[in-house]
């Protein structure tokens, strides 16, 4: 187990190094840098001014040197300065993370709380009206884009309540904050909940056919005990994997949702930064998302050990 974790840790480092190269190269493959955008927007092209700006930002240096500057800075916690705001990138990114983190966590909690029970119900009541309705519900969750759903929710609020939950960074209480965040979280989590529901359903149907379910019934266990103690504990294993993958996808869903609900989180900030080719912000933020994804997937693999006694990571 210990050797596995150590090996896994080195693999994570390798993955992140690969990710950093990819992020860096891809970002520079996108046409134009901040000086192009600034000078195009201004409508004037003074080659000398442009060259001076590029020199000032270090964009004239060879790409290897630029990469090294970034990575060596990253090692010492120096993320460089944002091009647009000219503030330290860390100061720009750090305060925005909690907002997005809360939103993502809430969305994930919602998607699990909605997806798993509905998936179980759908499987247990297979081919009933309830099952069909839930399957339509989940199909809609998979096909509705979250920004559209978010807009619909906003329109519904305006129409029925004449009021929209407006984000404030100074909520009155934790409940106020959860209330504010839960609507965008639902809009984002709906897709994940639909996916989790479908997976839980098919996984449950698979498990309910197993011999050990018949054994549990033959013991005289109640239907609820058979479904939850025996079936769900086995059926939830593939669902855990999806939850890990969805955690990364949520960030993508948050980009539009933060925009629609006007929430000053990381995701919306990222889109803004991409538009300005604000390299220090974009590459550090994407790197941060990569770290989160890698860590979450590591935690998912560790969760398997707790949930499935057949899995042992020893060599």
């Amino acid at each position, binding site marked *: 187990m210990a050797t596995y974790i150590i090996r896994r840790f080195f693999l994570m480092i390798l993955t992140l190094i690969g990710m950093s190269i990819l992020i860096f190269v891809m970002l520079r493959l996108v046409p134009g840098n901040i000086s192009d955008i600034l000078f195009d927007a201004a409508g004037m092209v003074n080659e000398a001014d442009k060259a001076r700006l590029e020199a000032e930002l270090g964009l004239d240096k060879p790409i290897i040197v630029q990469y090294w500057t970034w990575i060596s800075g990253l090692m010492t916690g120096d993320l460089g300065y944002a091009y647009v705001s000219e503030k330290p990138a860390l100061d720009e990114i750090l305060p925005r993370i909690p907002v997005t983190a809360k939103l993502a966590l809430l969305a994930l909690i919602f998607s699990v709380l909605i997806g798993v029970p509905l998936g179980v119900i759908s499987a247990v009541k297979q081919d009933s009206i309830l099952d069909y309705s839930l399957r339509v519900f989940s199909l809609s969750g998979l096909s509705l884009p979250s920004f559209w759903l978010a807009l619909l929710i906003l329109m519904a609020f305006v129409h029925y309540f004449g009021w929209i939950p407006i984000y404030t960074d100074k909520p009155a209480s934790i409940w106020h904050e959860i209330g504010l965040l839960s609507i965008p979280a639902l809009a984002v989590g709906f897709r994940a909940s639909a996916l989790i529901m479908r997976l839980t359903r098919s996984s449950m149907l698979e498990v309910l056919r*197993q*011999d*050990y379910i*018949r*054994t*549990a*019934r*033959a*013991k*005289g*266990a*109640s239907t609820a005990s058979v479904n939850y103690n*025996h079936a769900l*504990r*086995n059926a939830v294993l593939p669902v855990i994997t999806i939850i890990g993958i969805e955690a990364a996808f949520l960030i993508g869903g948050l980009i539009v949702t933060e925009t629609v609900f006007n929430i000053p989180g990381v995701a919306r900030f990222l889109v803004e930064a991409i538009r300005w080719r604000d390299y220090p912000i974009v590459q550090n933020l994407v790197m941060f998302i990569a770290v989160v994804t890698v860590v979450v997937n590591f935690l998912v693999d560790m969760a398997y050990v707790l*949930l*499935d*006694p*057949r899995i042992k990571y020893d060599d």
Partner: protein
Amino acid sequence: MTSTNAATAPAANPKAATPAEGALLTVQDLTTYFFTRQGLVKAVDGVSFELQRGETLAIVGESGCGKSITALSLMRLVPDPPGRILDKSRIVLDGVDVMKLDESAMRKVRGNDISMIFQEPMTSLNPVMTVGDQIAEVLLLHQGMTKAEATAKAVDMLRLVKIPTPEQRVREYPHQLSGGMRQRVMIAIAVACNPKVLIADEPTTALDVTIQAQILDLIVELQKKLGTAVILITHDLGVVAEAAQRVIVMYAGRKVEEASVEDLFGASLHPYTRGLLASIPRLDLIRGAEDTSPGRLQEIPGIVPALHDLPKGCAFAPRCTYADERCKAEYPAYEEKRPGHWAACWKSEIVAGGTNG
């Protein structure tokens, strides 16, 4: 139509229709149908039998003859839909009409009064629960024990089924045990509540030959120790000879013969039973290759008929060397041909004239 036969077959068996005194389990006209897209599948069609206290009754037949569905019907565990036990079926366990119990009362019977060992020890245990918890579960459900008492009893049960180092095994998961060990655990679960009836559905089929005998011996030994009546479902006549006192032979969802083990092996009255007996490999047959006997293992020609499309007359007629027009047209009555020896065959006297195997 076979449905009329289903009605006449048990009627022709008045002895089985009236519960004898002292019978632990009385099954009358047990009929389990599956309503499938291919049509009506008569998996169990009017089966009646009795089980005495402490007795071992074997139910024998090929795959798909309805043995396992008979067992599941006794537990009322037939998947519904598509399956259903018809209302005319009667299952009386120790004076209690099991068919009339509601689901929650039935749950108190399952695992407590009737319990079952399944064919597949590799897949019949929950992979994410410890062996101890799975044994303790029945005790918690039926015996009103505390968690600690149930766990302590689980260790005793593992010791009873001769699992070495039970204190350690009780905390292990099924994947850490071999097939034979898992079947021992299944037996421990089944006998934990000291049931009146233990149904063993092909308990040794999936096991290694060397383990088969051990498991069978264990079942026989536990039965003697606990006084449990056993219904042993198998296709292996060797198992029957070793463990059972009485045998029921099933074919295509119906009982075709019933006798004591001695009578059945000595002078079976149904050509199907003859075929089963002849298809057991025997050393003297193999050695007899130089003598007059052909030395080849006999087989029953043809296959088991599809249960949704049974022939009009005797279901075995298409495969039977004795069959004539009457066999193909009319289902034979189930009659007591010899004292305590029942068979459903028009030709049983001719069959009896031949020699076994």
